[in-house]
């Protein structure tokens, strides 16, 4: 069926990604060097969606400011969810703007165009709801589905029974009549969940179609997942649109300074080389509602590109993408896969990559080493500093000679210990590490924290805290 409109749910914070979500919701966190939400929009538009409805809430300024009124020429209508009262409640915010059948996807989870297309094409006028279904061993821990042909005959949250092999991928088409269903769904703990409404439809025997699809991208559940997500995207060469929707708006401007070798076009080979996926936390956590339905589907299946030799960029290096507005010193080394974002600067003798994504306006000063890391916008890595397997927020400053050498560590998030994470450190927005500091693997440095010269960081540093030697 021809579906023109899509509702993208992007109002929630994504608390398990704290402290990175201090100033923006999870959909705006970087997947390589673009916000996750851009990939979601790309998939929808590639699948033929013409009209985007975005439900925003938590830190919505950031979303609105990034995307403006349109993405790739498709208009975006914003719907504000004042309080985050569940995915069903989020969807209701857009109800007045939709009078034909529409798609619904999560804004914080990368989705494939093929999945969107499959659901869009399978849906018929008779269906109230159509949802993408994937095979996964994780089904019993999520929104599990049983199909009879193309009919969904059972829809259960976390049945914890091995008889379930299919789970709800979180990509839906609904008829407008579904809004009535959502409104009549009983709230659980004050929240209105989409999956409860779907379960109710199925129970009542309404026509709900299931479409078996090929699976989806790995989601980022915890901060370190941003590292493997970036690696996968880079290996698949999916970072090319990195300029973003608003990049080229320079009235009277000209093409920026450009790097010494103009950078840009490179070949990308999937999965060349091959190494282990860094230790990923096993066992999905019990999560409520639909949002988590498919979060770990596809986990631990892709191989990263590791240990590639230093690549000669001028000879068309593998997997090295340098934005045309970035500047790279001729004596710097970029090892693919690696992305250098717009306006970024790489100093002499710096080594960036492999498996590294630098966002917009990042500075890597002379002699610094950044490997296996995602460094977000406006951050500075000082001279001779080393970051291995690190995730940074925005505007992070790493002083001269400060070292986060990386390695395996146990990381605590909330009350849960995640063992054996391959994580150098998570350094949240505007944290400042002065020179000569050492950061142990698995450390979480909070927003605006200050680590003084020569200090040693181990474990958590709270927001705004100061660590002295």
């Amino acid at each position: 069926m021809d579906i023109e409109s899509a509702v993208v749910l992007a109002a929630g914070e994504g608390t398990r990604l704290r402290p990175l979500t201090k100033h923006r919701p999870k959909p705006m966190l970087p997947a390589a060097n673009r916000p996750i939400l851009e990939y979601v929009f790309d998939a929808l538009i590639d699948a033929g969606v013409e009209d985007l409805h975005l439900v925003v809430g938590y830190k919505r300024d950031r979303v609105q400011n990034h995307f403006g009124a349109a993405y790739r020429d498709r208009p975006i209508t914003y719907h504000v969810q004042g309080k985050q009262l569940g995915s069903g409640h989020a969807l209701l915010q857009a109800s007045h703007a939709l009078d034909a059948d529409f798609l619904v996807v999560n804004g914080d989870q990368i989705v494939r165009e093929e999945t969107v297309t499959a659901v869009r094409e399978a849906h018929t006028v008779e269906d109230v709801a159509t949802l993408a279904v994937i095979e996964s061993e994780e089904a019993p821990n999520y929104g599990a589905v049983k199909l009879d042909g193309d009919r969904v005959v059972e829809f259960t949250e976390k049945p914890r029974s091995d008889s379930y092999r299919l789970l709800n991928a979180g990509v839906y088409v609904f008829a407008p009549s579904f809004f009535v269903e959502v409104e009549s769904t009983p709230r659980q703990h004050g929240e209105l969940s989409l999956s409860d409404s779907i379960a109710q439809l199925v129970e009542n025997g309404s026509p709900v179609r299931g479409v078996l699809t090929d699976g989806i991208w790995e989601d980022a559940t915890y901060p370190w997942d941003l590292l493997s997500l970036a690696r996968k995207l880079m290996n698949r060469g999916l970072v090319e649109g990195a300029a973003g929707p608003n990049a080229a708006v320079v009235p009277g401007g000209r093409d920026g300074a450009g790097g010494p070798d103009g950078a840009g076009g490179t070949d990308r080979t999937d999965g060349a080389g091959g190494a282990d996926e860094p230790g990923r936390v096993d066992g999905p956590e019990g999560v409520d509602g639909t949002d988590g339905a498919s979060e770990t589907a596809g986990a631990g299946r892709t191989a990263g590109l590791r240990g590639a030799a230093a690549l000669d960029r001028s000879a068309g290096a593998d997997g090295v993408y340098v934005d045309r507005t970035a500047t790279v010193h001729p004596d710097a080394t970029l090892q693919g896969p690696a992305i250098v974002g717009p306006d970024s600067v790489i100093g002499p003798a710096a080594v960036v990559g492999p498996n590294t994504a630098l966002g917009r306006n990042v500075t890597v000063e002379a002699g610094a080493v950044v490997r296996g890391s995602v460094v977000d916008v406006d951050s500075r890595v000082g001279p001779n500093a080393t970051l291995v397997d690190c995730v940074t927020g925005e505007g992070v400053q790493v002083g001269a000679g400060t070292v986060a050498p990386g390695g395996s560590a146990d990381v605590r998030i909330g009350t849960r210990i995640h063992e054996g994470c391959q994580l150098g450190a998570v350094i949240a927005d505007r944290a400042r590490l002065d020179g000569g500091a050492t950061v142990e693997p698995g450390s979480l440095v909070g927003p605006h924290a200050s680590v003084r010269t020569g200090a040693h960081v181990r474990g958590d540093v709270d927001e705004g805290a100061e660590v002295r030697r």
Partner: protein
Amino acid sequence: MCGIIGVAGADDATSAVLLEGLSNLEYRGYDSAGIAVGGDEVEVEKKEGELSALKRALAGRTLDGAVGIGHTRWSTHGPPSDENAHPHTDESGRVAVVHNGIIENYRALRDELEAKGVSFSSETDTEVVPHLIAEALDAGADPESAFRRAVERLEGSYALAAVVAGTDAIFAARHDSPLVLGIGDGAHYLASDIPAFLERTRDVVYLDEGEFAVLTPGDWRVEDELGEPVEKEVETVEWTAEQTGKSGYDHFMLKEIHEQPKALRQCLRGRVDELEGRITVEELDGLDAPEEVHFLACGTSYHAARYGALLLQEAGVHATAFLSSEYATSLPPIARDTLVVGITQSGETADTLSALRKARGRGVETVALTNVVGSTVARECDHVMYIRAGPEIGVAATKTFSSQLVGLNLFVEQLLADEPRNRDVRELVSALRDLPGQVQEVLDESRADEVVEEFMGAKSFFFIGRGVHYPVALEGALKFKEITYEHAEGFAAGELKHGPLALVTEETPVFALVTGDGENARKTIGNVKEVEARGAPVVVVTDGESDAERYADSVLEIPATHERTVPILANVQLQLVAYYMARRLGRAIDKPRNLAKSVTVE
């Protein structure tokens, strides 16, 4: 000041296109609106008040015709009323005219026409135009010649568009007031500002001084004053309609405040080189360091000009910021090696254009610092540097001021690049590159909304600063009065005790800008103590380097950075102060009363 839109060849959609265009121009601030549609007959509908009043008057009725013109008015002659709204017509209703600008000899023309028995139905200067056209038609002229003959009689500034019954054409002329053609697929447009038709086409033709244009459903042409055809270049504008939407924000002003990091990145792109420690503004290549610099500007741009003058003075260059209207009124001595720099966001500010023309009359080199590509100032000055802030819709300038300050830093360094002084700009380059992220930090963490709540109902608001913070204090006060309608003044911190201190009471909150811990900070803290002693509530905007917080009732924090970029951060806090105060007061933030975005009358 007012807005013009016209369309030829929109078939059944003529009135819809006109209303859409007027709605896009709404931000220019106006008090009445109207449209006229031409064809066999000319039909006019116009109404005092907002566009919604006009739409109500139309009540779903569409005026049919191959061509149409529309107008939003901001009163210069005669109060807002249905009669004074444009389009204006002749007595027989054959001719309809819309006009921006001021017709300076309208009194004489009106007397002349009235002596011939013509009766006027409005108090506007514009109405002479349709009567003059009708007079020429009666004398046997064809519509185009009649339009030309009427325009020849006019003195002053104008952008004019007219339709005449029985002719499927729009006749337009430009003199000292902007007019742009939009070249669409099948339909052609004309407008005072590009956003009016940006949803329809991005291919534009800028009319130059003294040019005439004729738009018909299938064709368009431009002629000079003598009627000779002019080859015009069709340019494609980069701005897209999507950038002019509100994108989920309650106000354009808030959207534009939030757009500042992006705007500054665009301003800096390709102009700062951290590896080489160099600043280059390519379009100003070849401009040598002058002996003296005059900055000409109005309003917010004037505050930027003062900041620019300070930067140059620090570098040992004689530099002065002038208010354009005063400069034009009493021209100071201009030495031959003076560089005259006009700062205008829109590039159409009549006062600044007029002052620049006077300076050019003295034979000096001129530079335009503007945001609008192809604007009049850009075409009239010897050099132009764009601040690249993107379109600004809110009447109260926000992001363009920040971009002007950054642009001025670049301008100054480009100017002095070859100086033997051998300026080291490395620190400045790093600070400029850090600035967008720091602005984001202020936006993410500002407490302005809570702070203003404490001062609802205060009598007056004072803003004080010293050195580079003085222009910011002036701008903070201007922004505040523009959108809150509350009384606000900006003062040089050291000047308070020489008079204004008499106004300070418990009911006059004082916003003080204190950054760093040097002499300026110390002295400003002294001034803060003066007002504190008089019981005034004090809000300090500070980077926390000094102990200014100790003397403050509230604090608005900004990150510590280079002394040249820190005022930009302080200003963002003051923008938010003004915005949230205006919002709490329920003001029309994007369209403050009596104000217009770009002031194209002197």
